[in-house]
């Protein structure tokens, strides 16, 4: 059994939400506010969507698409926003630019500005993520599997979702450790190929576990 050159420590997280006193009642206001809110707010409404909604629904992908669909009833804009995969962008400013461009292009084709008639305005928020270490450090693939199966789902968010925003495109904490500490480059590649955007945190956990199980079987 391989022993890692450095241990992996699982971290879970808690999200403390903060309202920003910035609202949008129509799509032009949404575009304007998107340009001016702190990037932490862009993160909260896109990447953070996974932590808050993904246990049950992947219907909209981010808060902006959900608002366009449910509150404004503009299904075309909702569709265009829903396919924005935040993991495709190198940083949050690029993601912000993409969101603004989508709303801008959409409004250019219209002769009116869609607004909420019966629904709720969009309330911009941001969050303070507080991370905590969970369990003992692991140094082998078998220990990693055991830890991954037991940790709170927020650990999947920290290491697979938040890590990609922190480390850059396509690199999760799990993948980085498997490659750098255990020398399991092929397994790391497979973990990085998991489509986070269309899965719940529990499904992501199940897929990583399945890949690790295969690797453990091969090791035996």
């Amino acid at each position, binding site marked *: 059994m391989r022993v890692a050159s450095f241990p992996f420590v699982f971290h*879970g997280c*808690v*999200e*403390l*939400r*903060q*309202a*920003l*006193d910035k609202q949008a009642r129509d799509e032009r206001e949404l575009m304007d506010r998107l340009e001016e809110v702190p990037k932490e707010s862009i993160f909260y409404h896109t990447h953070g969507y996974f932590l808050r909604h993904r*246990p*049950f*629904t992947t219907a909209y992908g981010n808060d902006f698409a959900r608002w366009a669909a449910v509150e404004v009833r503009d299904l075309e804009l909702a569709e265009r926003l829903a396919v924005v995969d935040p993991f495709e962008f190198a940083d949050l400013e690029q993601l912000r630019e993409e969101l603004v461009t989508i709303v801008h292009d959409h409004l250019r084709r219209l002769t009116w500005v869609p607004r909420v008639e*019966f629904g*709720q*305005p969009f*309330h911009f*928020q941001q969050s*303070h993520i*507080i991370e*905590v*270490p*969970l*369990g003992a450090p692991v140094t082998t693939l078998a220990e990693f599997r055991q830890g991954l199966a*037991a*940790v*709170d*789902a*927020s*650990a999947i968010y920290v290491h697979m979702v938040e890590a990609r925003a922190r480390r850059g495109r396509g690199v999760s904490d799990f993948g980085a450790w498997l490659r750098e500490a255990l020398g399991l480059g092929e397994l790391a590649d497979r973990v990085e190929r998991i489509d986070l955007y269309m899965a719940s945190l529990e499904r992501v956990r199940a897929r990583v576990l399945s890949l690790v199980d295969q690797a453990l079987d091969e090791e035996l």
Partner: protein
Amino acid sequence: MLRLDDYAQVAPPGVLDIVRRLAERVQGRRMVHVSGGRFGGGVAETLRALVPLLGELGVETTWEITGGDPAFYATARALEAALGGAERVLTDEALAHWVDMNRLNAKKLALDADLVVVHDVAPATLVAQRTDARWLWHGHFDASRAQRRAWAFFRQFLNQYDGAVFPLPEFGRRLGIPQYVIYPSIDPLSEKHRELTPREVTAALAGLGVAQDKPLLVQVGPFTRDHDPLGVVNTYRLVKKHYDVRLVLAGTAGDEPENREVLADLREAAARDPDIVVLELPPDAHLQINALQRAATLVLQKSVREGFGLGAAEAMWKGKPVVGGFAGGLAQQIIPDVTGYAVRSVEGAAFRIRHLLNNPELIARMGAAGREHVRRTFLLTRHLTDYLALLIHLTR
């Protein structure tokens, strides 16, 4: 007294581990909660459970209550109503007396802590006598439609805090301090939400005079126009054309003349239809409400205006799909097509109920999804993590 380990049977896997790890970062810090009363209402229920759990985790936590004469409480109630959007007469003398009483309260109460959390209106002006601890105001109501003069008066005190907490971002107003967002929660091990045996449910319903020979549609909530119980009766009548169901409306009316009128209208409807049951219950009828929600086939929460009531979450915790309105925090509780339906009309509610009654497998599926949604989002253990996160964030 309940201990944190007791919640292991109901909390999501791993959450208690997170709670303990968060608490390790604030060992020995002191937190004081201050409210206007120790009994009645969701805030008191939550604090009664949270305060000992925080203590068990090593955060020295106490709960102080403001005292005052009847004029103090009358002004606090009127101001809270005005901040909630109702028209009230507030004289300068009454407001000055309320502030004076809290000046006395500040001398009597033990407010020496790292974080002082002041709940709602009655104790809010204590902050004028603040020490160098961090002070947080936790409002549990919707202040977005506050009367202008009431808000202008109240705002000067709120801006002396280090932060405010509202249940939803849209419940707040412009302030010069950070505004955090914390949903309310239910205590799954309390009398109102603990597991009941079928025998306990049957006995409680027999005690209330509710027969279980037909599918039950249940709405639990105050008999106010905001909670639309008359709309629920009209919904039931549309459903009754196709399904032999019984409607149970359970709640409190209080002394407000308008609410007594609503209750009288409901009783008149019940007098004409034996399948409409109207139960005026005391505020502490927790076991009876628990049993009614568990016996229900479907639960309605057809409010047209409310704060962040947890009626939908309470029913979902008991595995029931909820057909609810769009008011207040219902949108956060009901995930459309997953845990129930959000409707805007009597006809919409009837349509959704008929759909569910015609698809019993959907009732089971939505009920299970609703329970999981509540487990992750609305249990006391989540509230515990929020307060620990606030303590870490504000006392760094």
